[in-house]
């Protein structure tokens, strides 16, 4: 079993190495895209270093540690999936006519509303079902493929920019409101409101 788990780690290691090599040879010109690429490379290096350190700990040679090595693998694999899905694939799919165009739109919006944050990376990796979404952890916004042809949806881009603003200015925007709401619902009176059925409309 542990030989198998060790093999899984080696597979992840090799996949990460290929991704790092691919990005190394890629040039991205704009500030938003080159910053995003640099951050992706840092995440990839950090993960591959973590795997190398783990492989050298010696716990893979002993079945006593198997339940724990499985959990270690799950943690690392989840990190890998996130990086692949939200950082690496958007870079691979980068196209000047779609992503390049939206970068210019977002730069223009940020300048117009005088937002001091750096412009996020915008990718058309989404679809009609998932629609527009923002992922603040990686400072990215995803739009459906082909969205550069549907400019009436621009208001949704503003909504997603709002998520990134909220993350940075949450304290200023809502203060301790959310904590107080949670505290209220945890009280006896609050729990009665929480479990009360909503009237049918």
């Amino acid at each position: 079993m542990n030989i198998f788990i060790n093999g899984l780690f080696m597979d992840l290691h090799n996949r990460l190495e290929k991704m790092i090599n691919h990005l190394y040879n890629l040039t991205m010109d704009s500030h938003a895209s080159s910053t995003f690429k640099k951050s992706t490379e840092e995440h990839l290096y950090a993960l591959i270093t973590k795997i190398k350190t783990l492989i050298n700990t010696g716990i893979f040679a002993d079945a006593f540690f198997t339940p724990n090595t499985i959990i270690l693998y799950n943690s690392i694999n989840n990190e890998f999936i996130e990086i692949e899905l939200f950082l690496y694939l958007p870079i691979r799919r980068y196209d000047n006519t779609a992503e390049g165009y939206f970068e210019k739109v977002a730069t223009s919006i940020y300048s117009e509303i005088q937002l001091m944050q750096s412009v996020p990376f915008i990718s058309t990796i989404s679809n009609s079902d998932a629609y527009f979404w923002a992922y603040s952890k990686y400072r990215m916004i995803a739009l459906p493929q082909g969205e550069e042809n549907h400019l009436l949806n621009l208001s949704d881009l503003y909504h997603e920019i709002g998520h990134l603003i909220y993350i940075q200015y949450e304290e200023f925007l809502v203060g301790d409101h959310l904590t107080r709401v949670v505290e209220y619902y945890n009280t006896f009176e609050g729990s009665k409101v929480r479990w009360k059925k909503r009237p049918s409309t």
Partner: protein
Amino acid sequence: MSEIGLIRDQYERLTTTTDNVNNSIITFKKLYKLLKGEKNPAFTISKEELVFAKKTISGFMAYLVKLSNENSQPDYSIIPQKVVARFKKDKLDFLKSDKKLKAVERAVNTEEGLDEDQLKLLDSIVTNLDMERSTLFKKLRTARG
């Protein structure tokens, strides 16, 4: 907070707990092997590693003892509320074994460390945490906001 934000928050809290507990179990397993006289150069434990493992496991055991008490108000920053509710609904064995949990809490600070049964109990607990974490991760990959 949007739905995705809530799921992400729960996932990250559970990941921190799962990883900290799992790494601490690994430290105690290495200690168990070393105390048994096994000479493996890879099984070295730093002072900081051992202090962290003791603090993590004793704190987590105290938390689970509190969780097993029906009337307590648990700290959901360690295990999210929905996961706690599921653990209680499934009546998981480790929530019914106050004595065993307290024994682990005491044993982590002794020179003998944990015995094999106690390490097995910790393995079953962390495996449950990992399963819940995987469920949240699947939700996270399909929810967008």
